[in-house]
């Protein structure tokens, strides 16, 4: 009897596997590549400020306080979608918001920020994309939560939404307070 049921059970197991796959894809982004930099020190960078290109902002300048590095570009339509959410939902969290203008022309970025508003506490430019590569950026927008010690604690690939701010970003920010100084 059991032997007779075996093919059916095998089939059901297969169906279960397929359903699991569908369920998994519902909750995961297939093109998402998890970053190996989580819980590792943020890479070194020294990049010119968008509004004062003669000045630079470096990794060490940002140590001491946590910050959220948001990778964007004026060419990036999703960044435009994310922009009002950054302004309305992320900025009020009180965390320092650093914009990394990635593979972009500074003039385009300035126009873009003038048009949509500038939620960033500082904007740095990475015109040739080298700093982006050091951060393992492969699309925009991407965001990195860096703690006061300069360690990357969380990476968001793609845009922030109210849901993932609530479910991912907020808990990660809350954890920052608990890490010993």
């Amino acid at each position, binding site marked *: 009897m059991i032997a007779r049921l075996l093919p059916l059970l095998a089939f059901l197991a297969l169906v279960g596997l397929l359903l699991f796959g569908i369920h998994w894809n519902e909750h995961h982004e297939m093109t998402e*590549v998890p*970053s*190996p930099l989580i819980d590792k020190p943020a890479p070194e960078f020294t990049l010119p400020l968008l509004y004062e290109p003669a000045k630079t902002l470096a990794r060490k300048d940002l140590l001491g306080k946590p910050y959220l590095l948001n990778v964007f570009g004026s060419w990036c339509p*999703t960044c435009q979608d994310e922009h009002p959410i950054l302004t309305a939902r992320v900025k009020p969290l009180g965390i320092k918001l650093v914009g990394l203008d990635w593979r972009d022309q500074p003039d385009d970025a300035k126009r873009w920020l003038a048009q949509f508003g500038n939620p960033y506490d500082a904007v740095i430019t990475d015109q040739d994309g*080298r700093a982006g590569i050091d951060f393992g950026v*492969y*699309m925009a927008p991407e965001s990195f939560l860096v703690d006061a010690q300069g360690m990357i604690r969380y990476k968001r690939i*793609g845009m922030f939404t109210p849901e993932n701010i609530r479910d991912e970003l907020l808990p990660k920010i809350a954890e920052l307070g608990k890490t010993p100084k």
Partner: protein
Amino acid sequence: MKVSVMECAHTSLSPDGFTVGGEGWGEGAASRSVCNVAPERGAAPSPNPLPQRKSRWGRGLSRAAVFIGVFALCTLAHAIDPLAFKDRAQEIRFQNLTRQLRCLVCQNQDLGDSDADLAKDLRRQVFEQMQAGKSDDEIKQYLVARYNDFVLYDPPLKAGTALLWFAPGAFVLIGGITLALVLRKRTRAHAAVTDIDSGEDW
């Protein structure tokens, strides 16, 4: 980067299913079209979603957004990078190496093949490191440190990839054992039948 044409160059399929393009096509044509396949995912959410499904729509929206972001990087700017190789041997080494690396944007293309802007940047990075005398392994390590084992078409065997390496063998083994058991049973059943009803060979 000015354009955001939402398609990867080279990846379009001709009507007969073969990929149109130059030399160096490694694998099946269909698998390469990742950047053209999913625009329907970008469909806007219905104007009037049911309230209880809100988070679901939110997810759909964020997913659509990720796709759009990916498309935006897959530009049509077809370029053979003007890289100044020292000699032919270095050029061949460069081509071999970039063929073993995966483009993060058009994820079924290798780095040598992809016209995504990021791929161009990464090729430049590989080239510069090569000029600086780094070995192939060092260059791979450089990319893995930033983009994970995912950049390697031939992932190393370690705890995280064990399933990837051993699952196919395990499935073959399970299938083989099942087949062997079934066949043995049938042979026995057949032998029992032929004992009674001898004479005819089927």
